[in-house]
């Protein structure tokens, strides 16, 4: 990435916190167009999933879909956001943790809480998925995964079983 592209991304990250919704939407759209080059914007984009403006949220979600894994340095912040009470924020923070695989091992306790809470189903499913991506380092989640593997949510049950397979014995 060129210096200019790096500066553009930094500028867009700052603009994502602007007071004006139009400017925030423009920033989210620019970050979306940057694709995986915008990885350093992972945390601001996840936070932007709680924006009041539809356009900001939609462009932020689209950017996160294309982002790939987040830099390892922001994983602690993403772990905090994975416990957010805003489902879309928690969902995407959890997704980025899962994309980091083994590197996100410290997030296991928070992911277990997402699994065990009676909160958003999509967040719980993503938590099970992320634990599978973390693999053997998520052994501490085994009991929680075994519990939901026999539950009524077919997708959650399947993801939990897959995670248990990935964690191994």
């Amino acid at each position, binding site marked *: 990435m060129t210096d200019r592209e790096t500066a553009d991304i930094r500028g867009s990250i700052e603009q994502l916190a602007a007071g004006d919704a139009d400017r925030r*939407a423009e920033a989210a*759209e620019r970050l*979306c*167009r940057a*694709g995986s080059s915008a990885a350093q914007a992972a945390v601001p984009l996840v936070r932007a999933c709680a924006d009041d403006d*539809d*356009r900001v*949220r*939609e*462009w932020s*979600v*689209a950017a996160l*879909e*294309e982002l790939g894994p987040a830099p390892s340095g922001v994983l602690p912040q993403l772990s905090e956001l994975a416990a957010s009470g805003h*489902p*879309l924020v928690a*969902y995407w923070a959890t*997704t980025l943790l*899962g*994309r980091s695989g083994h590197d996100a091992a410290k997030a296991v306790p928070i992911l277990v809480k997402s699994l065990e809470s009676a909160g958003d*189903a*999509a967040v719980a*499913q993503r938590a099970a*998925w992320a634990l599978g991506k973390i693999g053997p380092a998520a052994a501490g989640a085994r009991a929680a995964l075994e519990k939901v593997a026999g539950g009524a949510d*077919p*997708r959650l049950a*399947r993801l939990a079983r897959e995670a248990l397979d990935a964690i191994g014995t």
Partner: protein
Amino acid sequence: MCPANPDTVLRPRLSAGPARRRRILCLLAVCLLAICLPWLAAPAALGQPLPAGGPVGKPWDAVLIASFNIQVFGESKMAKAHVVEVLARVVRNFDIVAIQEVRAKSDDIIPSFVRAVNADGSRYHYVIGPRLGRTVSKEQYTFIYDTNRIEVDATSIGTVPNPGDRLHRPPLHVRFRTRINPPQMAFTFWLVDIHTDPDEVPQEIDALADVFSSMLTLRPDEDDVIVLGDLNAGPPQFGRFKKMPNAGWAISNATTNTHRTKTYDNLIFDTTTTREYLGRSGVLDLQSTYGLTLDQALQVSDHNPVWAAFYPCEAQNLPGPQATTGIALAPR
């Protein structure tokens, strides 16, 4: 036999004889021409032909089916006139465009866009599916089609059942038919529009393989199923599709994203039942086709449209050897 080529219809032979017989024959020729006109007119009359490098303007002997992920197709994009103009020009090149990533709270995005497409006198219409997705961020699938050349079976529109919730955004299926005379010779086919979840691609490809197999036997009178869309995968990642002996796909060895780095978009079909495939396919590169910079093209979408050409008549109506020539499958 499939409708005659333009030369035969445009220049019918008139035998010598009474003036009355000549007038009747002339009238019949004019009527036949009027009925077949959408398929017989010069390409330039049916849509704006692309510059070299993209698919040709609509031919009389092929139906062009495309798939296009228009990234975050909603209010922001529709507010940019230059973007809408490019999108409209893209659509006009094809008989049907399967679109993914309609993301809007408003129900007027696609109707407004189709009005833009039809601003040049075209007659496109659309079918749109429900809002789908496991979070509050939803997407819709839509098909935009040229009503001069394509008909929709209105009873066929639906979302593929998704037992076990294996697909984040279950595909939209619609059955189409080419507008050709006689209608019993028309090419009919299912289109199944899909946008997989980029974080669960292998699992969703596996589920799509089941969808494909089910759709092939859904109706005893319909053996043509084309799964098309943003698979977030290229042929090497096609999982169970690669193990199906007759599955083929239109795009190989070509990138389909605007950055020209990935192959994510495709059209998949059964090569033994969908013999209508003409072996012609491609990627409409937004930058080179419309003279756009990378950033301008990305404002349109992070995907390029992909397309494939099919014969407008059912394969059993193709004259013998022609039914098998020209079908060049993408290598596995």
